[in-house]
């Protein structure tokens, strides 16, 4: 009885909250600050032609730099919570023949799509994050099809891949301090620098996102 009342109360509260929020959204005044003209005026100097990429990697590059740092910290947090005595569950007896076969076909296509997305980010929707997510999905798919094992602990090569995006971004940001401001690209090299950062970000994001899955997956040995 108590639980039902509590449930009813929370649901009513959520409904009232949603009503108030929706109501206030409709009453919202027109925005005072309009950033669109600012973005489109400076787009030519940003090195890319897609406004979202320009904002992410150039105008607000600092956010993206901190974002990849957050991803890295999150992965370290995941690694810290794993139990020390984990044994990756290795079982090669895949009951299903379709899944490995499909994964073998899909993974190269996903890699191709990821490369295209990375390249397309400069002038149309796409970019490092989408490409990284796709690559991570490919790795997770291969793992679910039992084609690659779960990661137990990061070896040197994987470690350098995980931090590459952050370090490359940080190195470029620091090098640009000589220009006056952090992350102020000289317009002549902006496109090249953004492509370099995005490539490194793609590799690191793919490995970090896949790591969130594959490291946690390695911790399932003693379960069941």
């Amino acid at each position, binding site marked *: 009885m108590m*639980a*039902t009342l*509590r*449930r009813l109360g*929370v*649901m009513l*509260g*959520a*409904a009232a*909250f*949603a009503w108030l*929020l*929706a109501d206030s*959204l*409709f009453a*919202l005044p*027109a*925005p005072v600050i*309009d*950033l*669109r003209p600012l*973005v489109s005026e400076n787009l030519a100097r940003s090195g890319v032609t897609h*406004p*979202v990429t*320009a*904002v*992410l990697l150039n*105008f*607000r590059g600092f*956010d*993206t730099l901190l*974002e990849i740092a*957050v*991803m890295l*910290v*999150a*992965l370290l*947090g*995941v690694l810290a*919570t*794993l*139990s020390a005595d984990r044994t990756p569950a290795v079982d090669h007896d895949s009951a299903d023949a379709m899944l490995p076969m499909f994964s073998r076909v899909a993974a190269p296509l996903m890699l191709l799509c990821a490369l295209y997305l990375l390249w397309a980010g400069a002038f149309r929707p796409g970019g490092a*994050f989408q490409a990284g997510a796709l690559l991570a999905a490919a790795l997770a798919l291969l793992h679910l099809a039992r084609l690659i094992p779960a990661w137990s602990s990061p070896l040197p090569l994987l470690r350098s891949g995980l931090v590459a995006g952050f370090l490359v971004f940080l190195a470029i940001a620091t090098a640009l301090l000589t220009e006056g401001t952090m992350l102020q690209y000289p317009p002549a090299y902006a496109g090249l620098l953004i492509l370099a950062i995005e490539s490194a970000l793609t590799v690191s*994001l793919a490995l*970090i*996102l896949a790591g*969130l*899955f594959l490291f*946690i997956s390695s*911790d399932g040995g*003693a*379960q069941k």
Partner: protein
Amino acid sequence: MLFAVTGVVLFAFGAAGTILLAEPLRRVLAFNIMGSGACVVLVSLAQRNGIADPVPQAMVLTGIVVAVAATGVALALARRLHRLAGDGESSAGADHD
């Protein structure tokens, strides 16, 4: 404004779920739905004038990635909790009423 209202409803669903559900995995999922609602509201407010503003879109993209990272940590913690709380049982204090 249809998107904004959808976002608000998603947010309310997620908030209610976060409060009501006792199981960690479901709670994390509900929290994710809440976050998605917030993102939908932000993106829809960014295109109120008919033309999309790229700045909030980029911010939401950043937010999505950070949310994924936070979810990963939350799941790892939930898994650890599950392991420490007891083996065999599906979860401590599952919501079955």
